[in-house]
């Protein structure tokens, strides 16, 4: 009997507590920088596309929502011909971001992507690509990778030595 009266009283006192509700559209929760939300494709500091079309994100995706086609430009630099993410399938697991060897694909703190038409949830490359480096400013894959592309041979990168002539090492 006492415990019943006590729980009634405690519940009654909650009248004077602060409400926990966040009035969402007017009032927004602060999302952390590591929030896994909308997926974007980022660019180099020199505004070149970071994506090299390696298909690792598409392979890692557990729901197969990423599809792309790799191609090469005249400098021998790989890039995706099209890049398509179906957000009606995406589960925002972030595996694509972890799989990406060039930091191109990134999940950002934004989840407000509701659409009336389901087809609008299929994002094409021009909707995915942003004009910035995202979470990794200053990282430029082709500047640190030992790949030869047009205008830059092997061993001309930062912190890179010219390739060793393997044949000269022969006895």
């Amino acid at each position, binding site marked *: 009997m006492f415990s019943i009266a006590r729980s*009634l009283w*405690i*519940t*009654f006192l*909650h009248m004077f*507590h*602060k*409400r*926990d509700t966040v*009035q969402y559209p007017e009032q927004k929760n602060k999302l952390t920088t590591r929030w896994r939300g909308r997926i974007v494709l980022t660019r180099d500091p020199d505004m070149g596309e970071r994506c090299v079309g390696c298909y690792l994100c598409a392979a890692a995706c557990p729901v197969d929502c990423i599809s792309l086609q790799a191609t090469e430009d005249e400098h021998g630099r790989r890039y995706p011909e099209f890049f398509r993410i179906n957000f009606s399938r995406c589960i925002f697991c972030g595996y694509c971001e972890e799989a990406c060897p060039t930091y191109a694909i990134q999940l950002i703190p934004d989840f407000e992507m509701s659409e009336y038409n389901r087809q609008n949830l299929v994002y094409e490359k021009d909707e995915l690509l942003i004009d910035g480096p995202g979470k990794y400013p200053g990282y430029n894959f082709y500047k640190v990778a030992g790949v030869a592309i047009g205008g830059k041979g092997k061993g001309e990168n930062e912190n890179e030595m010219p390739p060793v002539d393997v044949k000269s090492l022969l006895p």
Partner: protein
Amino acid sequence: MDEAIVHRLWIIGGVLAGLLIVAPGLIWLERRMLALWQDRYGPNRAGPFGLLIVLADTLKLFFKEDWVPPFADRFVFVIAPAIVVVTVLLSFIVVPFAPGVIVSDLNVGILYFLAMSSLGAYSIILGGWASNNKYSLLGAMRGAAQMISYEVFMGLSMMGVVLISGSFSLHTIVEAQKGMWFVVPQFVGFVTFLIAGIAETHRLPFDIPESESELIAGFHSEYSSMKFGLFFVGEYLGIILISSLTVSLYFGGWLGPGFLPPLAWFCLKTFAFICFFILLRASLPRPRYDQLMEYGWKILLPVAILNLVVTAGVILFLK
């Protein structure tokens, strides 16, 4: 038409309209109050303070598919939800809202109320039976047992008040509380009556007939659309009924300091009890079925009888 008859018709219409407006409004009130006690906001989008949620809910109920299951006993299935609303509305005949504002001052008011609330048990039993579904039947069985056993000492607990005031008429009972509210000499009777009242309206924590976590929705799990809505309205009307009866029996009905009209005092007190009903829902867990029965027969019934005997003895002694 006769002046008196017109006056009577005005009262009847006013009471009916008032109740049928307030009962759905309680849906809003309950959700807001529950939210308040659970540190939330509740419905606050549609209209001022979310009041239009009542309209939205009602419209939604009207437009839902009104479906009678093929295995149900059709006639009984349809009639059951009407019974609860009709009996509760009929009970309001004897409730004195203010001096003169009473549909009919029956001299057997309390007995009439007990009869009507007993009839209300039929809606649960018939609804659960006609649904032809094991969960509904279990709910109906529990409901029948609960309502019958709690009615026993509900009547007994009110007899103390009847002994003191010497009348079954609610109007006379309220008049008799001019000196002192009956909650003081009849505190035990008040507590037992309130508990019995909660069980009678099968409100939480005594919502055993419909306990959604074990019986889905108990006796009304097969009901949809406005038939379900009628059960709902009946439940809320029941809350108003029990609250207003508690007020008239133990808290001096319309009596109060003169700066407010009598009707306002009555409504204010009733509102406080309605809020108490909601507070009960917000804070107490549902007892087990056998605990409920044990509580009713082994504790509350003896307490009610003891209260009656002591009250009678004291009155005899004072005479």
